[in-house]
């Protein structure tokens, strides 16, 4: 129990004195995860909406695959990406291994299925409800897709939050392709794993508390924005 008390005290102390190393780790964590999230939304939202609206051969298989990919073990993805980015791999010439870009790439690939699969579900339900209206008005599929994406904006914000949750909490893949190098690729989760291995349990727990608090703050912020939008626009 005293370990938890120590951890809270240490977390408060770290934040209180604005420990430069901690701030650096927090900043990198946010940069990597938010960049991955934005890029994943840029792909996942239209991909999910297209799967929800368009009908084509192999669509059902694509939906099944997407749903399955939501549960993709990050370590497996990290390993595959490691092989692709390593010097002898097909993209080795890019020199991305053990850089924040590789970590963004890993999180991007992990978040896309979450955003796309949740978007597909929401947009497909809405499309069923609105299909007659769209057909009656002569709205094309592409127009319908954009209208439905906008109509589903509140649910999609939740899908985005789920994607952010996956990204910020990710440790396996970023550890493999990032390498947890101090001042270069060390993020909150890899730092926690490292401190745990070193036996610095209360420091690891303190970092964990900061991570949870950070994640909570960002979620609360997005929910507040959502609520404001709901109140303002109905």
């Amino acid at each position, binding site marked *: 129990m005293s370990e938890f008390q120590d951890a809270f005290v240490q977390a408060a102390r770290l934040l209180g004195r604005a420990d430069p190393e901690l701030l650096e780790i927090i900043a990198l964590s946010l940069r990597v995860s938010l960049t991955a999230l934005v890029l994943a939304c840029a792909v996942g939202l239209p991909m999910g909406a297209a799967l929800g609206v368009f009908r084509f051969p192999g669509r059902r298989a694509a939906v099944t695959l997407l749903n399955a990919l939501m549960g993709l073990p990050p370590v497996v993805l990290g390993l595959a990406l490691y092989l692709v980015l390593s010097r002898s791999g097909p993209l080795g010439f890019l020199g991305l291994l053990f850089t924040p870009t590789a970590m963004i790439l890993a999180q991007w690939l992990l978040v896309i299925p979450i955003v796309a699969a949740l978007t597909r579900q929401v947009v497909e339900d809405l499309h069923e*409800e*609105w299909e*007659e*209206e*769209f*057909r*009656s*008005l*002569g*709205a094309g599929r592409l*127009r319908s897709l954009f*209208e439905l994406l906008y*109509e589903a904006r*509140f649910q999609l914000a939740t899908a985005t939050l789920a994607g952010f949750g996956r990204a910020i909490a990710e440790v396996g893949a970023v550890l493999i392709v990032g390498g947890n190098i101090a001042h270069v690729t060390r993020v909150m989760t890899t730092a926690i794993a490292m401190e745990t291995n070193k036996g610095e349990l209360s420091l690891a727990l303190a970092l964990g508390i900061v991570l949870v608090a950070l994640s909570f703050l960002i979620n609360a912020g997005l929910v507040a924005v959502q609520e404001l939008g709901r109140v303002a*626009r*109905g």
Partner: protein
Amino acid sequence: MAEGARSAAGFGERGSILPLRVEGLGYRARGEWLLRDVSFTLRAGGIAVLLGPNGAGKSLTLRLCHGMLRPSGGLVSWNGPPAEVRGRQAMVFQRPRVLRRSVRANLAFALRARRVPRALRDARTREALAVTGLDALEHRPAHRLSEGERHRLALARAFVVEPEVVFLDEPTASLDPAATAALEGAIRRVAADGTKVILSTHDLGQARRLADEVLFFHRGRLLEKTPAESFFRGPRTPEARAFLKGELLA
């Protein structure tokens, strides 16, 4: 120039898609004929009411005429090329759906979907709001409207694209008397504006209040098509007489 092009494309002299001609129309689902051998012609102007008990084939007929379903038999023909006639019609479905945005934005959605030029949108929006009595609610979020107001918004969304024909499928089925009266007022104004209104209902009172002509359906067949006055004065078929007396028709 535009008028000439329209005539050349197949519209009549006045550029109208009416009359609507329905010949031997039938619809079959799961091996059962839900609609059989329905024929009628509807000309421009006024309110045509498709009347009959539930399951008579009224809504089905509306959907077939609007091109939402493909007939299993017979023909629906408009005065113009098929690719263009849909763009001159609009339909209000039985359960009105509203987008999670303002009343005005709901109308803007319909205008965008129909690719109405931007320059015309504002005037059309104002007219649709006025006709449906929603002017004061222009900026209100649509999902905060009452059930009756939502129905009027659905009508406004159909009217805003300036259709020549509006189909209304059981427009007041779930409304209280006050909301029904408001919606019927809006429907009358839409018709007075020159739009042909074709609506289905099982509500005798509503048919009496609105209809210029009545098409009486029963068990997937059209039994009578007659001016409203003569229908209510002296229906020709025993089914229609029973329906008017308030007897239950199955």
